[in-house]
């Protein structure tokens, strides 16, 4: 049997691809920052880009389960946890840029400035929901929490919705992009509802059956 010396030994090529892809936004950001490609309002750039990446990854992590159940794409399950953790990591960066670079850890100023602003409150709530999920994402915590682990981790659905609301409340007028994210999250959540799920899987096996019989028909010639 092969020894697992490093956590990354035994990763499938698809997992490698996902891990690498998740580092690209950060690498790109660091590159832009070091080469003077950010705007003259760099804190704003860092805030927006880390936030947008976190949202993308959160949506992708929500897509992993339906990708398996509805499309039969099993490798998606193997990257689900990683996607969630990367989403949290970018959310953490986003949060740190906000409280540290932007507000210099001046909690009084933050509270006075944005303590009652709804977009900040929903964004912060989404972050607070993701935090325990990230901490309990290990095998050990899965065992320890047993049934409750799954219950706890359903919190990501709420985090996804709150993250989109955070985005919708931020933009000035043209809310097409936030709404597109909202539609994606709603579709991915709907795909988990038992009636939708069984209807979709019936459709899928029906289609597969037709493909199979078509193949069989050809083969008999």
């Amino acid at each position, binding site marked *: 049997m092969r020894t697992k010396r490093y956590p990354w030994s035994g990763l499938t090529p698809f997992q490698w691809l996902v891990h690498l892809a998740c580092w690209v936004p950060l690498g790109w950001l660091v590159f832009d920052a070091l080469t003077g490609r950010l705007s003259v309002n760099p804190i704003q750039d860092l805030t927006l880009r880390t936030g947008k990446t976190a949202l993308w990854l959160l949506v992708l992590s929500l897509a992993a389960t339906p990708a398996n159940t509805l499309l039969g794409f099993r490798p998606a399950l193997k990257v689900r946890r990683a996607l969630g953790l990367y989403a949290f990591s970018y959310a953490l960066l986003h949060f740190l840029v906000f409280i540290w670079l932007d507000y210099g850890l001046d909690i009084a100023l933050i509270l006075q*400035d944005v303590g009652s602003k709804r977009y900040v409150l929903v964004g912060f709530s989404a972050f607070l929901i993701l935090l325990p999920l990230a901490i309990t994402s290990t095998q050990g915590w899965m065992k320890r929490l047993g049934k409750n682990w799954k219950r706890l981790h359903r919190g990501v659905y709420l985090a996804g919705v709150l993250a989109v609301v955070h985005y919708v409340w*931020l933009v000035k*007028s043209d809310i097409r992009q936030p709404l597109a994210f909202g539609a994606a999250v709603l579709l991915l959540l709907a795909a988990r509802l038992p009636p939708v799920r069984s209807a979709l899987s019936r459709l899928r096996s029906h289609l597969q059956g037709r493909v199979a019989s078509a193949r069989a028909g050809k083969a008999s010639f």
Partner: protein
Amino acid sequence: MHKIPSSEITPEHVYLSRRQFMKAGALAAGAALLAACAPDLTDSTPQDSAGQGGPAPSASAQADELGDPLNTFEAITNYNNYYEFSTDKQAVARLAKDFSVRPWTVEVGGLVHKPTTFGIEDLLAQFPSEERIYRLRCVEAWSMVIPWLGFPLKKLLEAVEPTSDARYVRFESIYRPEEMPGQNSPWYNWPYVEGLRLDEALNDLTILSTGLYGKELLPQSGAPLRLVVPWKYGFKSIKGIVKVELVAEQPTSLWMAAAPNEYGFYANVNPQVDHPRWSQASERRIGESGRRPTLMFNGYEEQVAGLYAGMDLAKFY
């Protein structure tokens, strides 16, 4: 850091005359020097912004009256809110590069005795520009210090003689969707419209700007003619003006129409009155790290507070 004795600083006229002999390469070095005078967080490398020639950017002072340094020409001309071109502030300069600002006419009319349509050259000749170093505070909570060139709006209004019925001034921007891609966006009621109360328009701080840093305005900054009202949020300072109209009723601006609960007619910089979604208590000065408190009327309280005596500024936001 040690101070440079004033004797070592090149007098401006020497500097300027020497400039004329400089070649293209040296031009960049001069710009770098200028950029270094106003320390900037990220953008100290000069670029030949929009590829325009002409004199190097210059200003008579290096700071505003509060002692805060001017933002660099590069920063001012590469970070623009001009939705007619793009909602991406960094994309505006590129998209506006070929926008033609000649020929250009400005129609001044409405409730006036002498309605006049000015060709831009005549307008510039009739109203000589002076330098005004103003803070610009965007409603998005970032700010800059900009050495504008311009003339008081009052002078233009006096020239057309408003009638006694005139209460407000309504400004309208150019509508040219084939050159301004953002004007194809259905989210806004183009063209851009802004307005001032007549006494605000006549205040000495209110200028029509024709340039900045000693140069003619670039398209991304609102060339050839834009409003600058330094005690109001930046969106009040309408760009690319083609029409100035004296009216009796309060005009509805583009932003008032787009989101009436968020943008009022007055839009005075006021740290005590929040935008419904954002706080306005602090701001990021471009070129600085961190935040600084926002000043009442953007630091022009002394000059303009009297305009709003007895008004509830939370109600008239």
